[in-house]
Every structure is written in C-alpha cells, then in structure tokens.
C-alpha cells in the first residue's frame, strides 16, 4: 500500500489526514482514486507533492511503490 498524507486545507477536503491506496501509484492513478474536488485541488500548481519527504519538481513524474508515503502540501500559511 501507499500512504497519502493531506496537509492543511487539503485534509479538510479529503475528510481525513491520510488514506491508503494500492501500490504502485503514479500521478494519474492517484488523481483517479481521489474525489474529483480533491483531485482538482491537488492539480493546482501551488500545491506541492513530496515522496518520502522529498519534494517533487514535477508532480506528473510521481512513481510510488509499496510502503512509500506521498504528501500533498498546500502553500504554507502567512506569517
């Protein structure tokens, strides 16, 4: 399984802080597995993606295997 972690307001949209999806998982597969409002939100270029704690320069290149953790990160809040 792959763990998907939602941060900030994406956790509200997801209705949960995290969920598990079957491995392997790419960007298209991830979006397909999410409710459409959430899939649309994570596509917003301001929302970043990290795989096992490393930020991805290109979300579309996501390739997660069993035991990996994907984090979906909205922009950080203002000071």
């Amino acid at each position, binding site marked *: 399984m792959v763990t998907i*972690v939602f*941060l*900030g*307001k994406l*956790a*509200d949209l997801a209705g949960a802080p995290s969920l598990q999806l079957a491995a392997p998982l790419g960007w298209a597969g991830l979006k397909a597995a999410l409710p459409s409002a959430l899939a649309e939100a994570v596509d917003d270029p301001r929302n970043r993606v*990290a795989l*096992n*704690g490393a*930020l991805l320069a290109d979300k579309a290149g996501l390739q997660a295997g069993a035991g990996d*953790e994907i*984090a979906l*990160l*909205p*922009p*950080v*809040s*203002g*000071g």
Partner: protein
Amino acid sequence: MRDIRLLHQMFIPGTLIGPFTQANPGLGGVCTFVGEVRYDQGVEALELTHYEPLTLPGMHALADRAFGRFDLMGLLMVHRVGVLRPGEPIVCVSAAALHRRDAIDAVDFCMDHLKSAAWFWKREKRGGQWHWIEPRDQDHADLSRWHEPI
C-alpha cells in the same frame, strides 16, 4: 552552539535564552526574537500543523544557510506546533555573534524565512469554527529583501 527544535508544549523563552547565551562564551552580542500569538479580534486559538519529514529538516536547512551567510557563533531556532492560545510564544530565534550586525541580521533572515517558507499550516478558531490562514503577499516581499526565490 546550534539548537533547532519543534516544541509540542508551551515554552518560556527565558528558559532557553539564558542557557543559549551561556553556551556561547566570548560572544559580542546576542539578538533574540520571540513571537507570540496575538489577541486578534475574536481569535480563540491557533493551530499549527507540520509535516514531520519536511518541517524540521527545513528548519535545519535554514539554519545551515544562516550559518553560511552570517558570521555566527550560535543559533537557537524553536517553533511551536499544536494548539496555541493568544499570548503564548509561538517562535523564538536567537543568534549569538561577535558583532551585532550578524546577530540582528541572522534573526531577521530566519524569521522572514520561517514565516513564509517553512512548512507550517495554520488555522485559527473564531466563534468555535476553524479557518485556514492563507499565504500572504507581504511574506513574499519579506523574502525578496534577501534576494532569494521562495
């Protein structure tokens, strides 16, 4: 002396600053900034969420850059996460250096970056409801003072 921490409980800045200053003998000056949760109209609480694999490593990377950019003897950078009440300290950055300019500028640099580029998500409770805090344009302006991209 380098002390970078995320704290999950209320802290008293003075209990950190005294030992930090003592741990850097020979310093010329130490500059400290402490931020507190403001008593903004109707705000009952502030919650900070972090993402373990990014937030603390990000603070360490920021400390590395501060040490690279300024002539520092020591740097203390402590940030709260969890639920905070108005009046509680949320962040404390302290820099010790031979010369005051390095100490003051390092604190200014770390605060600008912590506020706008560190991995914290904040929401505040008003009238019993939680509201997410959005990014601010001012934070981008603050970062541009250091001639760096976000």
